[in-house]
């Protein structure tokens, strides 16, 4: 299968590329950029005039599994509609991904669907119980690049330190969802004025920063690569920047909604804004934005969390935290570009090669020879997010019925067209 994408604006931060040019795909890989290679005859031509052509997005946090365990197909359809060609899924769900068998099963399921690639993140401890090391060698052999205990507490720091030593031995990155369990356990919103007004229990910023500081010290001590998932506070950005300046192998990502929203949106106890970590203050949001600009934060993710209607229909603190995000990641990121918060290059970098490097993947690039994972985007297209248009099985997003700008026209994975927008 030979395919060409003609007349688009190619943006590939991995090569510092931003220019109008053509792209050629053969046998699932990028063949060339620019001049048509001699003798190349395309089976399919995509006209991309007025469109952005970028590497397919790599999303570091996508919950694919629920109690029903049957969501992979719908959620991966939503992913490719959002231009996301690789999703990393956290180890919780049923069964917990703490063995090679589960990892292999997930990868096989994903392969059979021929949609986005799935990279399971393994459990750091068996059953995420925080007591016994998981079989990290097996997890890695089955395809895990990273292990994490998510937001579940470790039995004690001795266990954590041993987990890090063992992960280091297996050359695995350890992902931290930094949160001190006892400081956060009762909370559902940021501890601050909004929580005070609404009488909702707070999760103080220090619940996160204390855990970041502790993780950084233990990572330094053990020499393990550390990645911080979905940081939410200004002080976390500062601590991680300091560690990076000292040359430690530390990376971080942020959820797109943390770059847009603050806890002031919680006014009427709207449970669609019940998130974990919680929305914080303007100061935190601004520091996170600066962190993305400076490269302290390598990746922007969706933190996609599909939830049933009933999960959100209760008094605020009793609802389940989380929002879906696969289909809004692109337009919301473009909104940040439109508002002047991020340069387009930097924004695309944080969706592509940034997260790819965090996961140690040779993806997120349009370099010739690499797998042809590509998004073709109409950056001007305005559309309204509705329950009907959402492909995700769940509709828990506060952006429903809002007008968004920027839509994916085509998505390719391994040179295969996995999504094509209906022509207007």
């Amino acid at each position, binding site marked *: 299968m030979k395919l060409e994408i003609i007349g688009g604006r190619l943006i590939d931060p991995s090569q510092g590329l931003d220019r109008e040019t053509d792209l050629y795909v053969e046998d699932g890989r990028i063949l060339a950029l620019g001049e048509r290679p001699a003798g190349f005859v395309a089976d399919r031509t995509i006209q991309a005039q007025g469109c952005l052509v970028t590497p397919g997005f790599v999303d570091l946090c996508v919950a694919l599994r629920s109690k029903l365990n049957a969501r992979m197909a719908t959620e991966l359809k939503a992913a490719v509609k959002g231009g996301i060609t690789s999703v990393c899924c956290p180890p919780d769900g049923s069964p917990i991904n703490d063995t090679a068998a589960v990892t292999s099963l997930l990868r096989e399921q994903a392969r059979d669907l021929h949609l986005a690639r799935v990279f399971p993140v393994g459990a750091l401890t068996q059953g995420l119980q925080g007591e016994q090391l998981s079989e990290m060698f097996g997890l890695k052999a089955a395809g895990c690049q990273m292990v994490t205990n998510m937001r579940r507490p470790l039995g004690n720091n001795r266990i954590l330190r041993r987990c890090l030593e063992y992960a280091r031995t297996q050359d695995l990155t350890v992902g931290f969802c930094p949160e001190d369990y006892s400081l956060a356990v009762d909370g559902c919103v940021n501890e601050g004025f909004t929580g*005070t007004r609404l009488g909702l229990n707070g999760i103080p910023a220090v619940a996160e920063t204390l855990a970041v500081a502790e993780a950084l010290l233990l990572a330094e001590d053990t020499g393990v690569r550390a990645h911080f998932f979905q940081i939410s506070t200004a002080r976390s950005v500062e601590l991680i920047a300091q560690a990076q300046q000292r040359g430690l192998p530390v990376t971080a990502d942020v959820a797109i909604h943390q770059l847009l929203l603050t806890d002031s949106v919680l006014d*009427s*106890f709207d449970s669609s804004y019940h998130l974990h970590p919680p929305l914080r203050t303007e100061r935190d949001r601004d520091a996170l934005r600066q962190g993305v600009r400076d490269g302290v934060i390598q990746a922007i993710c969706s933190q996609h969390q599909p939830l049933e209607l009933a999960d959100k229909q209760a008094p605020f603190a009793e609802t389940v935290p989380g929002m879906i995000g696969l289909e809004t990641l692109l337009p919301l990121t473009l909104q940040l570009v439109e508002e002047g918060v991020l340069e387009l290059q930097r924004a695309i970098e944080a969706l592509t090669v940034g997260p790819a490097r965090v996961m140690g993947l040779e993806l997120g690039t349009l370099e010739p020879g690499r797998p042809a994972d590509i998004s073709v985007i109409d950056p001007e297209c305005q559309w309204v997010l509705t329950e009907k248009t959402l492909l995700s099985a769940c509709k828990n997003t506060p952006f429903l019925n809002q007008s968004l700008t920027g839509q994916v026209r085509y998505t390719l994975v391994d040179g295969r067209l996995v999504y094509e927008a209906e022509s207007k």
Partner: protein
Amino acid sequence: MSSSAPEHAASAPQCLQLNRFGQLRHFLSIEGLSRELLTEILDTADSFIEVGARSIKKVPLLRGKTVVNLFFEPSTRTRSTFELAAKRLSADVLNMDIRTSSTSKGESLLDMLRNMEAMASDMFVVRHAQSGAPHFIAQSVTPNVAVINAGDGRHAHPTQAMLDMLTIRQHKGSFENLTVAIIGDILHSRVARSQIQALRALGTPEVRVIAPNTLLPAEVERLGVKVYRDLKQGLKDVDVVMTLRLQKERMESALLPSEAEFYRLYGLSAEKLRWAKPDAIVMHPGPINRGVEIDSEVADSPQSVILNQVTNGIAVRMAVMSMAMSGQMAEMAASQEVRP
């Protein structure tokens, strides 16, 4: 010096509480309600005080209406005053003790509400341990049911705050020149939050909170209060002293070392009350822990207006229920008019 202006955000709760004419249709929180509306509640309550003094203590304002007391948390007092208020307005009253019925059997709150609606209820009086539960209920029920918040989590207890305001107005005339201090567990108190909002909205120039840091919520000063950790300094020149109930659990959750130390620092004794103005009144939302947050000597003294608060509770609840019901009916009538 007056306290800094209280901050409150936007209009969402306000929109939910008011109908298109700006009248009350739910009563969920003091936040966002205007001084005029709060004064109207107080004036209406004043007119109902007279009803309570009659030999036949009924007016027909809610005749034919069904009021359901949905109490998800036990409260004999508040429920009784709401029940009495509804009956004096001639409503039919149904008391639902939720702990022993539906939700404990796994029925969702929403399913339970649908059942209540199906009984053609006109008003829900809601007490719930979760902050925001009455908002959730007001957003979830059919539009013709009025929702009155009878206390939700740490968030709000607006009828308690309004009966406190009525009591203050009776004793002090107005709010313009008052300094009011609220002592004790501000962190967990829905009463304190609503009191602060009501006092500020009614024009009280200085509202103080007096507590140790462990019992103060984050950024409390942004509610428009001055913060004192020291009782003597905090009571200086104070016209109204509002004490709060201290729950025993606070000692178990590492917020306070002991009741004795709390009493020593913040318990209101006759001696400490002398730090306030000589004509200061003393209030408490009940039930009182004598010898913890307040001494018997003070609670039973001429300066104490605690029993006035109880009496005013019925009048204020009658006022709020009748106003919300009429606001709800005005809204229904208007929404039917615009339909073809």
